[in-house]
């Protein structure tokens, strides 16, 4: 799909800001994790920010989004409160999930973030049901599920694809295709690696984009959202990208070369977009620097907020097991 050549400046700076916010957020998480100040594990999406920023910005603010284990960038770009998200990762009571969920379960229904997920596959069936609800309620919303290339080999993917198409659900299935599931390259686990083709047997519309081109992602998802909503039909969107960070804290990168990682670092979506904005005269260096400064401040403040927040209390562990 071709990118619109005329870029709106405000939109461009917004997308750049979101990508930078996601990147800086994760770099901070990585740093505090290495100091042992963040507990558990984290899956960083460094290098994949254009997918999150382009996709989430193309949604209406209250559309519902189901994320994956690598869900920080999507939550950031969907407009979650950064302070509360950082506090969650630091396991604080002020966190979006009150310190009970952590990195892998970031959620905030008020901005349509219906959860990062520790299990591969469920985002798609869940988004089907969410889209069914929106269709029945006629509330003008659509639902979106992120999932990875690896997760598209789960039964849940295929069942959801069928259900969404046969029931005519306004849902977007967005595959963040970084060509690896942990260490396993897509070519080792799929005979046909063109994931877009998986829509054909389900009679579903599908499209593939350069997931490191934030404008292409944005324009495509915007158009597909409109299509899904107006026609009550699902769409499969494949966003090709690469994670330059490891799979998780336990990744020794034994399955790929430094050259490969560096090749993709050169194609960093943030770097690419900045260069484009400058070369096409859409933004000045000063304006870009300002976005950089603002996002740095936002993230620094979020860390401060998190570190100043108390831990949850043991007495409260039974809160939220059941709803009232």
């Amino acid at each position, binding site marked *: 799909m071709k990118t619109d050549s005329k870029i709106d400046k405000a939109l461009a700076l917004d997308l750049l800001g979101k990508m930078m916010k996601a990147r800086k957020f994760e770099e901070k998480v990585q740093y505090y994790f290495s100091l042992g100040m963040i507990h558990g594990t984290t899956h960083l999406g460094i290098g994949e920010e254009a997918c999150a920023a382009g996709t989430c910005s193309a949604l209406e603010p209250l559309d519902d989004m189901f994320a994956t284990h690598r869900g920080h960038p999507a939550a950031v770009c969907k407009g979650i409160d950064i302070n509360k998200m950082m506090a969650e990762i630091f*396991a604080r009571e002020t966190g979006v999930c009150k310190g009970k969920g952590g990195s*892998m379960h970031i959620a905030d229904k008020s901005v349509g973030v219906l959860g990062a997920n520790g299990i591969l596959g469920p985002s798609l069936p869940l988004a089907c049901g969410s889209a069914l609800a929106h269709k029945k309620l006629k509330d003008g919303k659509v639902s979106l599920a992120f999932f990875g290339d690896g*997760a598209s*080999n789960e039964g849940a993917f295929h069942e959801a694809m069928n259900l969404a198409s046969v029931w005519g659900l306004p849902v977007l299935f967005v595959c963040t295709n970084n060509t690896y*599931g*942990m260490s*396993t390259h897509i070519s080792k686990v799929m005979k046909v690696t063109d994931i877009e083709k998986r829509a054909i047997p389900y009679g579903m519309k599908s499209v593939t984009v350069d997931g490191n081109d934030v404008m292409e992602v944005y324009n495509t998802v915007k158009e597909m959202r409109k299509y899904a909503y107006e026609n009550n039909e699902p769409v499969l969107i494949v966003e090709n990208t690469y994670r330059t960070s490891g799979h998780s804290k336990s990744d020794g990168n034994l399955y790929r070369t430094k050259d490969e990682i560096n090749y993709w670092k050169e194609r960093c979506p943030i770097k690419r977009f900045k260069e484009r904005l400058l070369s096409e005269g859409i933004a000045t260096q000063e304006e870009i620097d300002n976005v950089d400064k603002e996002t740095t401040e936002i993230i620094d403040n979020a860390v401060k907020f998190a570190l100043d927040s108390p831990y949850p209390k*043991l007495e409260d562990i039974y809160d939220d097991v059941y709803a009232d």
Partner: protein
Amino acid sequence: MVEITYANAIKDAISEEMRKDDNVFMMGEDIGVYRGAFGVTGGMVEEFGEDRIMDTPISETAFVGAAIGAAVSGMRPIVEIMFSDFMSVCWDMILNQAPKMHYMFGGKVNVPMVLRTASGGGTGAAAQHSQSLEAMLCHIPGLKVIVPSTPYDAKGLLKSAIRDNNPVMFLEQKLLYRTKGMIPEEEYTIPIGVADVKREGKDCTIVTYGRMVHTCLNAAKQLEEENIDVEVIDLRTLLPMDKEAVLKSVRKTKHLIIVHEAVKTGGLGGEIAASVAETDVFNYLDAPIKRLASEDVPVPFCPILEKGILPDEDKIVKAVKEVLA
């Protein structure tokens, strides 16, 4: 005797059986170059090749089902599910396929396979990566369920599991992978279904398994300083369970505490307590039976909460004193 980690004891058990029997092979996600999420299978793909250490697509229903299918058609597969929480994704295979075939087909089909999976919390991985789900598995006749607590037990029991003609669920304890213990250099196996008295004592019986064995042993050490002599029984196999070992110990000590990491409600503590209560050994008890287990909540992320919901040494010491009071 040689010192070895729990993870390497598991690897050695599999490797030894694979060298002896060409029909033994492994399947799982990222068990090759990545060495498995917990590093258990390091070096195995180099030794045995990709035909016997098979990386799978992320398709648990397909590859666990394929392990069962391979087992019924003549192989002895070992299949790894990265975290025991993901058994949910292929539950039909675990619940309705593997354990039913032998019985349902009149004893004419065997399912000699082992499903290895990492179980338990303490890693800050939150509600979907930390559960102890053994009680669910013990509710399925036809399965065997093993939870080893030491490198010695892990190796000996896994070798027996691989040679067993039934589907065996082998629940490895995440927090024990890096712990060390002594094992003999020569070959040995440990029979499935036999408990182990990890510490002899005369005042109170603690029945436990998995990583809680170590917590209980530490508590017993503390109590020893106060002249309280605790017996710690490690069940090792949960299904079939060595109930006789429990009865024998309780007859001697007249006090029973059960400790596990899994949530209390519907946990094996209830099964163990009932096994005592329904025999004459009940009459030997000098105090009510006590169960120490996780609070009935999903595993929370915050480390303070995650730790706080579990039995620990202090809680065990207190419980022992209470039943002896």
